[in-house]
């Protein structure tokens, strides 16, 4: 097990390198460089701009390959560089905004699991019953309605009818819990709806498969109660595929939050990324994408380790 984890962590290194090269290359392929945007903005503000000095100051005078190695050298020392537009280091921006995105993402996952696992199990236990059909229909509906539509509706109608709107001013989780939840609760539930639809169907299918196995029949025959059979025998043995799907949706949850952050004015990485993309703020985008990718990688690793923990028969190679 320990050997496997070490091997996986070693395999992360080339993957991180690939991510670095990919993001860097894509940034430099964007039409219009940060320099153009900055010159445009400064001239619009009525300032005299010396393009060449600015180019040297931004470090854009060197060839792209040199720039890449300067950046990657910084990354290895834990320095993601400075934002080209904001007077702040990329590390500082990420340290400020990543917790916001992670909180939204984890809340979303929390609601997804809280809704989908018990309901999926219930649907499987009462296959083709009324709750089964109801929840399955809702699951499919939630999967089909785009998140941004639900979010827009939730933003408009409660505000018009009851004068309610989610907070738009961010407060830290530990500074002001109520204000924080007032901001995150609604978007996280909306984000969780679509995920729940997918997971519920997954949990249901897996549980149905497990319910037809011999050991479940044995459990019934032994005289176990329904609760015990469902939780101890069916549920625990259906967890592997479910964990896989949840692990797979983690990347989507964190990436897909761009829309929710945008609509609910949540100051997370997604918002930052859209602004940075508009300005061609290379270092910020590279830093954000890299950090997000590393987080996704680590979560994937945890999911793989969970396999072994859930099912010791799984061969880790």
């Amino acid at each position, binding site marked *: 097990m320990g050997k496997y984890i070490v091997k996986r962590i070693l395999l992360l290194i080339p*993957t991180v390198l690939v991510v670095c090269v990919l993001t860097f290359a894509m940034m430099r392929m964007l039409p219009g460089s940060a320099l153009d945007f900055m010159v445009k903005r400064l001239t619009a503000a009525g300032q005299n701009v010396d393009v060449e000095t600015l180019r040297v100051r931004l470090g854009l005078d060197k060839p792209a390959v040199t720039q890449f190695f300067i950046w990657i050298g910084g990354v290895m020392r834990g320095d993601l560089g400075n934002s080209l537009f904001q007077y702040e280091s990329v590390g500082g921006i990420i340290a400020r905004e990543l917790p916001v995105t992670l909180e939204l993402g984890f809340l979303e996952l929390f609601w997804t699991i809280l809704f989908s696992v018990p309901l999926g199990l219930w649907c499987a236990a009462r296959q083709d019953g009324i709750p089964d059909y109801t929840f399955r229909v809702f699951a499919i509906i939630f999967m089909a309605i785009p998140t941004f539509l639900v979010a827009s509706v939730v933003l408009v109608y409660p505000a018009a009818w009851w004068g309610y709107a989610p907070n738009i001013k961010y407060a830290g989780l530990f500074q002001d819990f109520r204000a924080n939840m007032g901001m995150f609760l609604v978007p996280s539930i909306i984000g969780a709806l679509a995920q729940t639809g997918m997971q519920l169907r997954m949990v249901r299918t897996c549980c149905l498969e497990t319910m037809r196995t011999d050991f479940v029949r044995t459990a019934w025959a032994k005289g176990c109660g329904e609760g015990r059979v469902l939780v101890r025998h069916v549920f625990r043995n259906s967890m592997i595929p479910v964990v896989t799907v949840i692990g797979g949706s983690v990347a989507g949850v964190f990436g897909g939050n761009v829309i929710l952050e945008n609509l609910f004015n949540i100051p997370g990485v997604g918002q930052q990324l859209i602004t940075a993309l508009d300005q061609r703020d290379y270092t910020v985008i590279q830093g954000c994408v890299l950090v997000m990718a590393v987080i996704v990688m680590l979560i994937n690793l945890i999911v793989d380790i969970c396999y072994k923990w859930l099912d010791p028969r799984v061969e880790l190679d």
Partner: protein
Amino acid sequence: MKKNRKKTGRPFLRDLFKKKPLAAASLIFLLLLFAAAIFADFIAPYPMTDGAMQVDVFSKLQKPYLFMNAAERESARALLAVSGGAPHWLGTDTLGRDVLSYLIYGARTSIILCVSCCVLSTLISVVIGTLSAVLGGWVDLIVQRFVDGWQCIPAMLMLLVIMSMLGNGIPQLIFALSVPSGIGGSRMIRSAAMGVKDAGYNKMSDLMGGTSGWKMLRHVVPNILPIIIVAAAGSLAGVILMESSLSFLGYGVAIGTPSWGYLISNQGKSYMYVAPWLAFAPGAAIALTVFAANMFGDGVRDLLDPRLKGGVGSYDSKKIAKKVARLTGVLPERVPGERFIHTSVKEG
């Protein structure tokens, strides 16, 4: 011979209609949408002229004719008698453009994207997946690290970066949506190809001097075709949702191209309270299409995916009971299905 061929000629479509009525209905819906997209110019009550929707400022933000009461219909008809034209069944937007026509032209955008992304992404994933599996060794290692890295970057971020790299427009969207999903999907194709790589026919092909390309095209791809089709059908729904999300963020189609997601973000969001049809009509169009695509994909998977065939996934206790009864001549009292045992244990 002829008779035999007829029997096995279209088992897939026949099975789809027989066993998966919902998936078949979804297929019909998608085909109708396809037809509407092709013949949009003839179906739409207000067809495009010179590549732009017809604007009519006198009837802007008109309520859907569908939901009008008699008096409102009367006044709407009076207005139409002056301007000429059909009633606005789904209302009009802020420029007086007919929403129904907009949706029909939007279907064109969605269908173009759906079909081309589906084909292109499948092609990409098949090429990467089978190449990686068949060539193996260093190629496999390097390609797989690349795929790993690519997959770790959250999809939405990747799409935003690619779209701002290429600019707005349909060809750009096709590229941006199909390349990432093609690379992501190559995983599944690769593992399927790995499964058939060492099969007897491939070894035989090696012995007879078959090249890697020959093996790929003649042996590996035909043998994993069901999985390829399943993957392609499963990717349909995602394309529509992603396109509308991107258009919603302003990174989608070019301005002027009708798109469901763009209508919601551009007008539906701001006029949600005054003119809810501007958000709900395209929203319903997206939801219905995604629903149909999902159902169709699920149906195709259930019918074609070899991993589900014959396994516990297709277990049907009643059918097995019938089979047992036919074989043994006695009706079994208990069938290995959880409901049976459940009740019998409780009663006993």
